């Protein structure tokens, strides 16, 4: 009987446990939250201009992707643009226009306008690292014009634009390796490191207009799309210039940020400079070794890699080892050009996005301490000479031993 009474008591007490789930003073109802998937920041008239992209829960499955079915004129997200003397003041002002409280924990991307990047981004990074619901794992981008415009653009194939851009940059760094995606904590790490410089991928609109109406995305070929562009370079907290995609690619080789990459090259450089072959670099390693040469540093950059030939436009027998060696040499020259070209531009910008300062600190502590004491890294950096050595191996040539052109000629 006693056991039965105890069991009954326990059963009656169990619902009381739900009271503990309320979160005390911090309870938040899901239907009162505006879940942001992206944010953008500009600097305008000495004020912060912030744009927030809030997922629209009332938007049904439209023709913009997924399994489709049904249609609605309601956009998948809405944006709010607010201004304030501080970022938090701007965020709080969204409550003047929105029915929902901003909730940043599910943010995927942050876009920084060039105007803000030139003004300085320290305060923005500080806010992200300090605020409880801000995510330091958001991917950060830079845009040439107004950052807020980027968030207005609808995407095809995905409804959640923030998440779509995240997928784009992850895919790019995995398959193209022009530049790695930069998450906010990585940006902060780079700026706080010995180098004090960082890079941010550019995000842009390919056309002049912004596709911000759901009806406009019903077309097969949008006149304006979101795309990844150049690589923005920051020094200290400020924007100092751009690297083209080619230069960014060279930088990826220098900084060992290559996952997989496709390189176009001339298969018979002695006959023609025409880029008529493609090679997928599947494995790549870069080893940077600083050497002090009396009055300046020499960076020995060893780049090694291997992969597979995927395209060939010249007459060639791939069973001939000499032909393969010739192609490997051509590939190596191609990458050497990329690296040298990138280094020239980086040096011109005077921002150590190569991470050479970190390498010097790790390999030559005494000299680094002296450089740090004299605060002379900028001048030491300008004196650096690079010596890149590239060694690539074509491991496989695909499913064909001869080029189609050679078969045709035979």
């Amino acid at each position, binding site marked *: 009987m006693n056991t039965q009474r105890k069991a009954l008591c326990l059963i009656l007490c169990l619902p009381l446990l739900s009271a503990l789930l309320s*979160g*005390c*003073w*911090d309870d938040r109802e899901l239907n009162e939250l505006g879940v942001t998937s992206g944010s953008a920041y500009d600097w305008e008239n000495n004020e912060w201009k912030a744009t927030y992209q809030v997922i629209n829960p009332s938007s049904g499955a439209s023709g913009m992707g997924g399994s489709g079915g049904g249609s609605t004129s309601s956009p998948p997200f809405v944006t709010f643009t607010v201004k304030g003397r501080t970022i938090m003041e701007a965020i709080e002002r969204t409550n003047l226009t929105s029915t929902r409280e901003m909730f940043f*924990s599910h943010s995927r991307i942050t876009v920084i306008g060039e105007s803000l990047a030139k003004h300085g981004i320290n305060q923005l990074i500080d806010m992200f*690292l300090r605020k*409880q619901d801000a*995510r*330091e*794992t958001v991917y950060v981008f830079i845009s040439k014009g107004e950052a807020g415009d980027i968030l207005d653009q609808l995407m095809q194939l995905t409804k959640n634009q923030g998440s779509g851009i995240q997928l784009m940059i992850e895919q790019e760094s995995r398959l193209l390796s022009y530049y790695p995606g930069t*998450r906010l*904590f990585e940006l*902060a*790490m780079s700026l*706080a*490191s*010995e180098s004090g410089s960082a890079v941010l991928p550019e995000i842009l609109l390919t056309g002049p207009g912004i596709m911000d109406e759901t009806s406009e995305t019903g077309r097969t070929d949008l006149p304006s799309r979101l795309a990844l562009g150049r690589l923005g370079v920051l020094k200290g907290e400020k924007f100092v210039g751009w690297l083209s995609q080619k230069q960014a690619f060279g930088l990826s080789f220098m900084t060992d940020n290559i996952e997989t990459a496709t390189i176009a090259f001339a298969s018979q450089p002695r006959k023609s400079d025409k880029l008529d072959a493609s090679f997928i670099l599947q494995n790549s390693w870069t080893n940077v070794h600083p050497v002090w040469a009396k009055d300046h540093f020499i960076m020995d950059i060893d780049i090694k890699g291997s992969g597979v030939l995927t395209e060939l436009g010249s007459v060639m027998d791939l069973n001939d080892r000499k032909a393969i060696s010739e192609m490997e040499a051509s590939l190596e020259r191609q990458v050497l050009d990329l690296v040298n070209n990138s280094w020239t531009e980086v040096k011109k910008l005077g921002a150590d996005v190569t991470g050479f300062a970190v390498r010097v*600190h*790790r*390999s030559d*502590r005494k000299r680094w301490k002296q450089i740090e004491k004299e605060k002379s890294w900028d001048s030491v950096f300008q004196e650096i000479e690079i010596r890149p050595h590239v060694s690539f191996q074509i491991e496989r040539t695909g499913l064909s031993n001869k080029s189609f052109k050679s078969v045709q000629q035979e």
Partner: protein
Amino acid sequence: MNGKIGTTQAAMLIVNTILPTATVVLPIIISTYAEQDAPMAIIMSTLAGLLIAAIVGTVIQNNNGAPFLDWVREKSSPVVSTILGLLMLQFYLDTTATILREFVNFIKDNVLINTPVTVLVILILFITIYMVRQGIESIARVNTLVILLYFVFVPLYLFGLFSDLNVHNLLPMFDHNLAELTLASLTPTTWMSEVAVLLFLAPYLQYPQRARIIGWTGLLFVSVLMMFSLITALMVFGPDFIKLSAYPGFSTVGIIRIGRFIEKLDILFISYWVLSIYLKFAIFLFVTVECFKQTFRVSSSRPFIGALGLLIALECLFTWQSSAKLNIYNKEGRFVVFFLFNVLVPLGAILLYRVHKSRSKRKGVET
């Protein structure tokens, strides 16, 4: 209610006596001074901790697990024991209050931002008083279960962070001089010295003669886990970024991502941390109550647990209101206080034992 606890259980209690607040407070202090050489500071503090554990273990061996203050009373005088008891009671009240404050600060910073501190303190206190009333044996059993959960959390943590771990962030090694490393290891040493709670847990040890082993095992486990937490945080964030973060260990958890579907695991790890800090707080409240019991020679401490809890709550709410003050105390003041009570008191006890022993030998020769 207070049964005896085994050697392994006691060693595990030592782990959770030190680790929960150590993982939150120490990384920022150690990395400020030692940066990527932080593991060296942990090694140095562990060595100091092992020495303290040896001293505490020797005291327990000498008194054969008797209540510490009763033994002091027996070997010296009731006045000495009462004064020492009062001072130690003050020390444990302060320490327990700071633990409660660290607990509340962390919860308020990370999870319950709008909930008033007083409500959090009262809730935590009620739960902990209940735990202490169940006795040290129950606390030890729950503690064992909580420690076993490491077998779930450590692999999850490593697996989720694997792609972000960069061993080069630990370079250059030995970049800091001995003075900087010593400064970095001072505060962790104070945490390691918390092994001295064994003095008050001794009456509940099944084998008090193994107190040294208990202390050493617990400290080595703490050292390994601290090292693991710091090294992974350093490998992910590097020595410069780690100084920016108030809770580097938890910032590391924040970036865990498995595939595209498991992320934002902070709350899972925070929940686990809350489990372990409850145990730490319960152990210290238990030790405070035990110290009170021995000082005032009361037979049952149960009626006083609530009163002592209230004192701790008030100190937590009003003395440690400012987190800056608590940070400075942790960084600069704690070492002196902990050295006094966790090192000098046990050393004094050994001295007392030796003097008493030589006196009784002399008396034996005279008679």
